[in-house]
């Protein structure tokens, strides 16, 4: 049995679901960010699988752009998290409640 497009798509769907479920259930902001990154990488996997399937490089090029952008996003996101930790001494979303009052 060989690996086909379907296998890659199923793996990507599984990764995407893991990320989405984690986003809903986890409480630590860094873990939340990791969940979003897993979702992005699931999307990348699907892109590359389709790109290989059609033998066209568009999808792979897009995946590279996504990685570059994800790195920039991580830079901004981690900076914001450091800032939050300075204020709160905590990284749990339950403590993010300044707007409640």
């Amino acid at each position, binding site marked *: 049995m060989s690996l086909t497009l379907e296998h890659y798509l199923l793996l990507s769907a599984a990764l995407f679901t893991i990320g989405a479920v984690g986003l809903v259930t986890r409480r630590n902001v860094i873990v939340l960010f990791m969940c979003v990154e897993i979702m992005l990488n699931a999307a990348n996997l699907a892109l590359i699988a389709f790109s290989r399937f059609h033998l066209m490089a*568009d999808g792979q090029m897009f995946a590279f752009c996504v990685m570059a*952008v994800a790195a920039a996003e991580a830079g901004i*996101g981690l900076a914001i998290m450091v800032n939050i930790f300075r204020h709160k001494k905590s990284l749990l979303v339950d403590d*993010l409640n*300044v707007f409640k009052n």
Partner: protein
Amino acid sequence: MIGFTSADLLGLLPALLLVLAGMAVLLLEVFQRASFPRTHLAYVTALAALAAAGVSYLIAPAEPQTLWGGMVRFDALGCVITAFTAVACAITALGSTRYLEELEIDRGEYYALLLFATAGMSVMVSANDFVVLFLGLEMAAVAMYALTAYQRRSNLSSEAGFKYFLLGALGSALLVYGVAFLTGLTGSTGYDEIGAALRAPDAARHFANPTGVVPFLPLPLVGMALIFVAFLIKMAAAPFHMWAPDAYSGAPTPTTGFLSGAGKIAGVAALFRLFAGPFATPDLSGGLAGWTTLAFFAAVASIVVGNLVALTQKRVRRMLAWSSVAHAGYLLLALCALGVKEAAAGSIRAVILYGAAYAIANAGAFIVLAAFGRDKAEADTLDELSGLGRKHPAMGLALSLFLISAAGLPPAAGFVAKLSLFSTAFAAGEGAATPAYCAEMLQWLAVGGLVLSVAGGLAYLRVIAHLYGRDAHVRVDYRPHPATTLGVAIAAVLTLWMGLMPGRVLVWGGNVAKQLLPAEVQAAPAEVAPAAPTEAPKAIEVVPLPTAELPL
């Protein structure tokens, strides 16, 4: 290897100008003494943004062109939206200088981020390929996350930035996953190729059983839905709006107007390009994905939630944040009307006018609020604004004008914009080609939206009543910075101009419609006479039909 010519560069000139100006501002900042105020950087930013707006007006092509090997579409939509977002950027920059000084966050990066965000929006609305769309969207989004969390020492700002960031990143993930499924059709990320594949005679094949993995799940359909949801998140439309009130009330006040106004119109313009282009069926009715229905429910939810919750808010910025959700709903209402062939051109004109009016008035309103912050806390509760209209007549009048525009009352731009929007939506209901249920839904939505916009209007009028209230708690001894006054003046003049003489903007909108819609739709009688309410002036009727001679 694909080469490029000077024509390719010309098409992206406004974005290039904004990026270069942003880099220049960063360089100027390096050679700056720490204690020296950055007012001149605000002027440089405003000048560059206004120049970009002027350039995009001047270079607007008479015929749509495809540049960069098919990746960028250079047409009236991109030029008009770039122009208005750039003007909003200029207003915001002018209104920021004193505010940043008072909060001791007066650094050049702020202005560079504003310029980069505007450039990103410009790229995003010009995209003709999902790669370019994604890059533009992220260029704007990453800059906007940083702007939201810019006030480092503030707890509020960091938290607002994080919420915006997390939801924005989620939106990006959904977008990329959606694009992946559409790429699966042909292997290409171009709008044209994907559109052709979706419209191909055998397209039903993709929708029935695309890969054999999940026979009942048509992947392209899922892809379109994911992309649509991603845009709803980015535009803060219900039911994906929960981040917006927090992000908007935690961000530095001047930027909030820019994020909520310019960000929204760039997002909705990109959606219009998608839904009039690759995702459209030849007659635009319904579409393969039935996206009219999706847009309809999002519009209903946004208008209801935004207006009703705005009424209950005590703080001005939170009120404006919630009503920005309602404004996203109105923009989506226009998107619904795009799905009806007879009303498509009208919906594009309405969305251009509405978006322009909203982005400009919103930026103006927030810089007035920023100017009257007291003791480094923003003028936020109604109490702190009371008496503004009597102690600072010009500023009070300008703020009232912006709020009136947002509420949709004459003589401000918002009135004509709402009028053309609702009449288009109502006319869309008369469309013969539409399924009957869709027509009826749209008419009910137009009527319901009108009623709810009255409710939302009350929230704005309450603020105006406080401006002219008996007791004065506003900063009396405060004189706004000349830059702020200039920014408010630009916003006020534009809001009045679009309110009293909307013809020009509607002509631009007509040109956008002509360049955006497929030829089959153009052949149909696209003009629907707006069913103007009885008390309405004849502002809409005098508007000439779009002509090819005009540059925009």
